[in-house]
């Protein structure tokens, strides 16, 4: 597996869009073969516009929104691209996209070049043309200064106080790749979706340290919310940030190379890096770059590679297990909680209780699941409540779905004629017995179809749990297609796996409906 070096980015937005992205990835992979490549450099020159793709979400110091007024778009890559475009005699234009999908956006010809802390990797140079590097990055460990970790070397020793070291990394990043080298008996690597998410967990003491790209570490250590962290030990490892263009765009690549070369020689690049406090001596090697280091590796891959599936099906299945575990643990909780909420909201319940429960339902339904998970996992620790990823995932899904289930049951309960409750009460039943034996069983029959379709939706919503460092099926697909390739192959396999999960539910629901409709024998539900 190759290393990728994403810039830090919190993950609030990009996960919600992930399912859309899967579709567009598939489509782009299918359509790209037939596209006739026009000359991008000529287009750039005639339109006077060089469009570069990057992800602005928390991407400091790469590309981000300035905290100071007038809150413009800043970052060393922004300034670099302004200069590069200047050299080409055109204007640089930024285009927002999800970090992990930038290369697919490039394929769709919506941008001319990807510039966003993309590392030079062998796998990428197979399909795309890299420019010469504009930054030599290193990895930096961040930890609490009074914590047990003071340098990378500490991680090869047993953890004082027992247990494994818990080290957070940005999933799928160079740090993630570097962390594979740790002794797995001593170190547990926790993969996060955003660089700052890992830093928050270090701050709350839930993990010991986080390994970050040096620029990100140097930037965030200067920010008030992470200033209590320290850079633990010297930076290690190294790799190159390069820009990528489409394979046919040799002319554009050469033009960019010339511009970068000129900026490196003139010291302008150094000035930019110094401005963002990320200059170090390692950058001196940029001057002596030779082109053959970025020569494309000539390999080709079949259009549809079944060996990929054979090799990675166990991995996909394991992640499907995570999906199933999350869904099957949270749905029963949601169903039970929803039932109590619905009963508590009946007109006969105390006014205060009804008010509290309506507020709960409206707040939960009115806010995104992602935000709720984020609060459970990243905000609660600030208040001293520590939940494991699984606990936060199951709880978050259960809370979110309980509100929807409650509304379904409320409709179901309202659909039962008042006379049913009155007849049960007139027989001398208590209200709760009447609900349990007469009203709820009838309402259950009505709500089976909508609850089943919610359960199916829940399976798909578990993908949001990747924000909690859980690698479920969609996340695994995203990781595999980014690292190994096989957007189409893994896409089809992933889709089939989701379908395999939802079909049995549909059948189960049909069977339950039939059972409740049919004759159930005179003593069904006999004596308690």
């Amino acid at each position, binding site marked *: 597996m190759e290393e990728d070096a994403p810039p830090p980015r919190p993950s609030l937005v990009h996960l919600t869009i992930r399912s859309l992205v899967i579709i567009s990835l598939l489509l782009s992979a299918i359509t790209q073969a037939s596209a006739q490549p026009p000359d991008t450099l000529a287009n750039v020159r005639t339109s006077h516009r060089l469009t570069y793709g990057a992800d602005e979400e928390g991407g400091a110091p790469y590309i981000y929104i300035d905290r100071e007024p007038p809150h413009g778009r800043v970052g060393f890559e922004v300034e670099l691209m302004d200069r590069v475009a200047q050299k080409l005699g055109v204007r640089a234009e930024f285009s927002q996209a999800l970090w992990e999908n930038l290369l697919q956006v490039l394929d769709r010809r919506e941008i001319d070049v990807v510039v966003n802390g993309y590392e030079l990797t062998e796998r990428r140079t197979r399909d795309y043309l890299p420019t010469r590097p504009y930054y030599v990055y290193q990895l930096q460990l961040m930890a609490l200064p009074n914590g047990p970790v003071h340098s990378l070397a500490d991680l090869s020793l047993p953890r004082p106080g027992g247990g494994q070291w818990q080290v957070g990394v940005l999933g799928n990043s160079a740090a993630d790749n570097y962390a594979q080298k740790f002794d797995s008996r001593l170190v547990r690597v926790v993969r996060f979706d955003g660089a700052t998410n890992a830093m928050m967990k270090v701050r709350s003491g839930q993990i010991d340290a986080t390994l970050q790209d040096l620029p990100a570490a140097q930037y965030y250590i200067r920010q008030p919310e992470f200033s209590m962290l320290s850079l633990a030990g010297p930076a290690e490892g190294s790799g190159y940030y390069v820009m990528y263009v489409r394979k046919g765009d040799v002319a554009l690549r050469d033009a960019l190379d010339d511009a970068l070369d000129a900026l490196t020689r003139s010291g302008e690049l150094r000035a930019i890096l110094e401005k963002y406090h990320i200059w170090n001596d390692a950058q001196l090697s940029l001057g002596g770059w030779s082109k053959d280091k970025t020569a494309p590796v000539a390999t080709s891959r079949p259009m549809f590679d079944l060996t990929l599936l054979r090799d990675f099906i166990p991995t996909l299945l394991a992640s499907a297990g995570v999906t199933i575990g999350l869904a099957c643990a949270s749905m029963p909780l949601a169903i039970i909680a929803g039932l109590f909420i619905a009963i508590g909201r009946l007109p006969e319940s105390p006014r205060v209780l009804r008010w509290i429960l309506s507020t709960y339902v409206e707040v939960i339904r009115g806010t995104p699941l992602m935000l709720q998970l984020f609060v459970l996992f990243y905000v609660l620790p600030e208040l001293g409540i520590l939940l494991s990823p699984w606990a936060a995932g199951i709880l978050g899904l259960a809370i979110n779905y309980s509100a929807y289930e409650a509304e379904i049951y409320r409709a179901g309960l309202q659909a039962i*004629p008042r006379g049913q409750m009155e007849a049960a*009460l007139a*027989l*001398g039943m208590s209200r709760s017995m009447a609900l349990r034996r007469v009203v709820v069983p009838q309402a259950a029959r009505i709500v089976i179809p909508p609850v089943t379709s919610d359960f199916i939706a829940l399976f798909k919503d578990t993908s949001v749990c990747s924000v909690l460092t859980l690698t479920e099926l969609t996340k695994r697909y995203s990781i595999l297609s980014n690292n190994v390739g096989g957007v189409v192959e893994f896409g089809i396999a992933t889709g089939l796996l989701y379908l395999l999960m939802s079909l049995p539910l549909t059948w189960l629901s049909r069977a339950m409906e039939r059972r409740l409709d049919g*004759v159930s024998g*005179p*003593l*069904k539900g*006999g004596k308690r």
Partner: protein
Amino acid sequence: MIDVSGLVKSHGDHPVLRGVDLTVAQGEATAIIGASGSGKSTLVRCINGLETFDEGKVAVDGLDLCCTLSRRERERTVRAIRLRAGMVFQQYNLFPHRTILENVIEGPVHVLKLGVDEAIERARKLLDRVGLGDRADSRPRELSGGQQQRVAIARALAMKPRVMLFDEPTSALDPRMTLEVVAVIKDLASDGLTMIVVTHEMAFARNVAQTVHVLDEGKIVESGPICEVFENPQSQAARGLLNHVEAA
């Protein structure tokens, strides 16, 4: 057996019952008649606690229900009253998710905690009595309205109530089905079961009841033995009801 005094109830500022006094003796079959909206249903529902009231008192078999009781006391009294007073509704209100037999044993098994076998035995006898012994395993929706109403009567009787409250038990039924149900109720009355029958079918009232009370706009305007009231109605309301019947 049943003693209602000074019962007052309103929905918002709309008065429904405006001081109702009513006594039903042990073994007496009483009819309550009145125009639609006069408050008949509200009155019987106050008796077994399905409705609350604002003033006055209801006593059933020595159990006193008045508006000064605390929530818990009221709850306890109402449940005790419901065990003594069975109720049959205009719309039958059988439990559609259970069979006929299950409907009838539901109360004995789950409220009275009777053994299942004993409850079934009791249920089968009652179903035979209302002429539906062969439909024990049917579902309510497979029965006609008259049959369902007879099951509802059996379901109430299975609790061995001391009083039966009927709220217009025949007004959702066609004449033939009405006859089936009236026959069952008449049979119960002749057995000496105390009952209140709310109806606006005069023939039905005459058939089963000894006493009749005429309710008009939330007040009892006339009471007496059924023949007297029917032969010689004193109140405007009673005359209206009787004329209406004759004209029909």
